[in-house]
């Protein structure tokens, strides 16, 4: 009796005094990290650095992905960078406009002097000299602006071509099989189509419009502005139609296929948990939690993709917006003293910059809406569980 008592006492003492260290691990983080490694997301992030240019030089994209996984999105650094860019562009466009203002001032003085002469052609020659100088100033950076926009659209298409296969793989992994097989060809087709059409048709059309506008301001009596207006309105219509068709097709097909996916997955899970005898229920629930982590990762990748798209587009958008505002302000300032053709010239340049801004904005909105819709559709397929 004594021996038993002492044995149990010693065993209890040993049990309570010797403590082994115990580590508890966060199961969600492990699953997400493993999924990240197996999908090669860090490779994807490395490759996107090719396309993003220098807007994201000091922003770490991996950190953004991690913070998006946990649900916080840090906006303040991006806002500050946008404000910096705005200030820089404002300063650099002011130079051109101050030059134009000085030229118009000198011309109005010379015109007032030369009105006393009898010969009409002197004033006309003064006008042509002024006109040539102003056009030279404006055209100095116009062609670099157009090639900048072309580069941006190419970067956008390249980046989306990288992003969509990764998103599709994640979507298939989390169970939206019908949705991804239906949507991926549509999205890739539209992305490539828009990139090619804008480079081959729309931007040359904008250059043609600029040429027509410049040429028709030489003389009062000979004008071909209506052709330029027709081309402007047709570009606007064309972009609007493509945007509408794209958004409509994706939302319609997405709502149809997401319910199919949800019901399929639910039936499969019910079959597994009821038919497999011992481990069926545990198997079904653990698959659910793994897929939930997959959905968190997919959403994070989508959010990072949208932020990168905004970052690619933001530099030319800000430049175009400042140029458009400055030109229309200067057209209003110049109106009392300058020749009417110059006022109209500056106003029409402002509307061309607005057209280019509209092209860029609608392309980026197209991509952002496409990615967001794709994520939301595959999320709603998961809601059935």
């Amino acid at each position, binding site marked *: 009796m004594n021996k038993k008592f002492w044995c149990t006492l010693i065993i209890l003492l040993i049990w309570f005094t010797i403590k082994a260290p115990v580590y508890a691990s966060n199961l969600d983080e492990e699953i997400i990290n493993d999924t990240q490694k197996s999908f090669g997301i860090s490779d994807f992030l490395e490759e996107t650095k090719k396309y993003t240019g220098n807007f994201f030089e000091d922003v770490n994209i991996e950190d953004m992905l991690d913070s998006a996984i946990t649900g916080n999105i840090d906006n303040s650094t991006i806002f500050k960078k946008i404000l910096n860019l705005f200030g820089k562009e404002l300063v650099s466009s002011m130079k051109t406009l101050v030059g134009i203002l000085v030229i118009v001032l000198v011309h109005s003085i010379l015109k007032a002097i030369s009105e006393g002469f009898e010969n009409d052609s002197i004033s*006309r020659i003064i006008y042509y000299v002024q006109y040539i100088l102003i056009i030279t100033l404006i055209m100095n950076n116009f062609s670099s602006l157009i090639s900048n926009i072309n580069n941006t659209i190419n970067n956008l298409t390249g980046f989306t071509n990288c992003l969509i296969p990764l998103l599709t793989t994640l979507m298939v992994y989390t169970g939206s099989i019908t949705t991804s097989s239906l949507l991926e060809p549509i999205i890739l087709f539209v992305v490539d189509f828009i990139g090619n059409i804008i480079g*081959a048709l729309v931007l*040359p059309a904008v250059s043609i419009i600029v040429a*027509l506008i410049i040429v028709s301001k*030489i*003389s009062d009596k000979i004008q*071909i502005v209506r*052709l330029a207006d027709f081309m402007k309105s047709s570009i606007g219509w064309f972009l609007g139609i493509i945007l509408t068709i794209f958004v409509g097709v994706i939302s319609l097909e997405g709502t149809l296929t997401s319910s199919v996916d949800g019901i399929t997955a639910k039936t499969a899970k019910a079959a597994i948990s009821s038919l497999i005898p011992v481990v069926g229920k545990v198997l079904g629930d653990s698959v659910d939690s793994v897929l939930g982590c997959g959905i968190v990762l997919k959403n994070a990748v989508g959010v990072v993709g949208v932020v990168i798209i905004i970052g690619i587009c933001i530099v030319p958008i800000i430049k175009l917006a400042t140029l458009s505002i400055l030109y229309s302000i200067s057209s209003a300032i110049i109106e009392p003293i300058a020749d009417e053709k110059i006022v109209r010239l500056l106003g029409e340049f402002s509307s061309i910059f607005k057209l280019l801004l509209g092209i860029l904005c609608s392309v980026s909105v197209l991509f952002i809406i496409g990615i967001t819709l794709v994520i939301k559709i595959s999320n709603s397929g998961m809601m059935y569980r």
Partner: protein
Amino acid sequence: MINFLGKWIEGIAIAVIVASIFEMILPDGNIKKYVKIVLGIYIIFSIISPFVDRKELYNLNISKEIDTYSNNIVSNETNSNR
């Protein structure tokens, strides 16, 4: 395609510039109106010149053009896939 558009716009721009120069240096008088009519016809003609080539206009069959264009694209793709 881009070459074609470039040549077209070059034609229009040259027409308008030449017409403006003439309009400037012509002396006022009876003849000015008629010269302006002729210059206007020159400008109109340079704008619609791609559509006025007579051989193309008579033999223009749009569906055949689309067929040959898409056949070209398909044969280019099969050649580049091999």
